[in-house]
């Protein structure tokens, strides 16, 4: 072969070799075709574990039960029974406030009218369950005070405070 063909060919082979070597180092060992085949299952297997290790923040009402039995029990007999504690009190295991750690910081409670209005703003939608929930007009019904001043969110049926 002539020199002017051979020289660039060596350069190209060199580049390809470098790329292949870099690929061997850079691409993780568990990267490849997995259960769902090449079309849907070409990935790094270890990423599944990465996602499984993601931090759980919402622990559920059962988690609150042991320390806050009074609140847990009082809400259970009311129309609010299906509302999770953390929906208003915030996630128990948040990165900002690990409520169950030794320090036990207080959770920040949203006491504004907004969480109540999520359901209790009246929307007369005939084909939705929303129209069956009792609502108030927030502009006319004591607009300047928090709902919890008069109503007990843990037992809304007990009457006004």
């Amino acid at each position, binding site marked *: 072969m002539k020199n002017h063909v051979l020289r660039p060919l060596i350069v190209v082979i060199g580049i390809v070799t470098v790329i292949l070597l870099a690929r061997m180092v850079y691409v993780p060992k568990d990267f490849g075709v997995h259960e769902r085949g090449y079309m*849907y299952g070409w990935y790094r297997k270890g990423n599944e574990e990465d996602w499984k290790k993601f931090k*759980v923040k919402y622990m559920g009402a059962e988690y609150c039960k042991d320390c806050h039995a009074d609140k847990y029990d009082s809400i259970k007999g009311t129309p609010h029974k299906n509302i999770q504690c953390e929906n208003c009190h915030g996630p128990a295991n948040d990165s900002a406030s690990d409520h169950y750690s030794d320090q036990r910081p207080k959770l920040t409670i949203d006491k504004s009218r907004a969480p109540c209005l999520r359901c209790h703003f009246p929307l007369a939608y005939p084909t939705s369950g929303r129209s069956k929930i009792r609502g108030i007009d927030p502009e006319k019904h004591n607009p300047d005070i928090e709902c919890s001043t008069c109503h007990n969110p843990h037992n809304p049926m007990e009457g006004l405070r």
Partner: protein
Amino acid sequence: MISRRNFLKKTALGLAGAALPLAALELVDPGKLFAQVAAEKTAVRWVFLVDTLKCVGCGLCVSACKLENEIPYDANVTRTWVERYVLTKKGKLYADTPKGARDGYASTKIELGHGEFQDVKAGEIEKAFFVPKLCNQCENPPCVQVCPVGATYQAPDGVVLVDRTWCIGCGYCIMGCPYGVRFFHPVYHTAEKCNFCYHRITKGMKPACVQACPFGARQLGNIKDPNDPVTKIIRTQRVGVLKSEYGTKPQVYYIGLDEEVR
């Protein structure tokens, strides 16, 4: 010396032998087959069931999802959202989802976009309802097919995940999803999507949105388990899926799906 006849005969025989695949000689092993069937029985395929008849548009699922999955709370992106559909008696359709319904719907005014709102009086409404949306974890996910680097994939249990360390942020998957569930994560700058709270469901917990919903409008199930209550509903009741014409085989089933819902 080998004769011509003999040579041709032996060559034909040899070719025939070579053409026979080794697999054809393998006998069916009942033990192996049984193990395969058993493995199939214990396998998991996560599906989701949304009962739109129960949804009241409180948006607690959306706020729980954003906090659980570390999606910046005030950024206008979310893994799940709730849409409001209002159909008037004159046949006009309005649909909105302000901030993905993160704060619920505390107004009768419907967002039209560009800062405009339309107030529809109760008397004008023919139908109005709420529809929660999330990733459909399609059996044939187009978002996975278009990924050029193998950063998004379908896990063996059917959930489509994104590898944040491998995503190059090209955005093909965001374009490819017919349901518009994907977006760029404002912090990681990689493709982001609902994964049924993979970190929770693999520990036996419910997804954050399912747990947060006070009305039982959202449920997670394993379609490969015939005794799963969600599987029973999907198999015995009238359920629909979104955009089935795309052939993506979405695995989020809806009860009470209206034709206006896209």
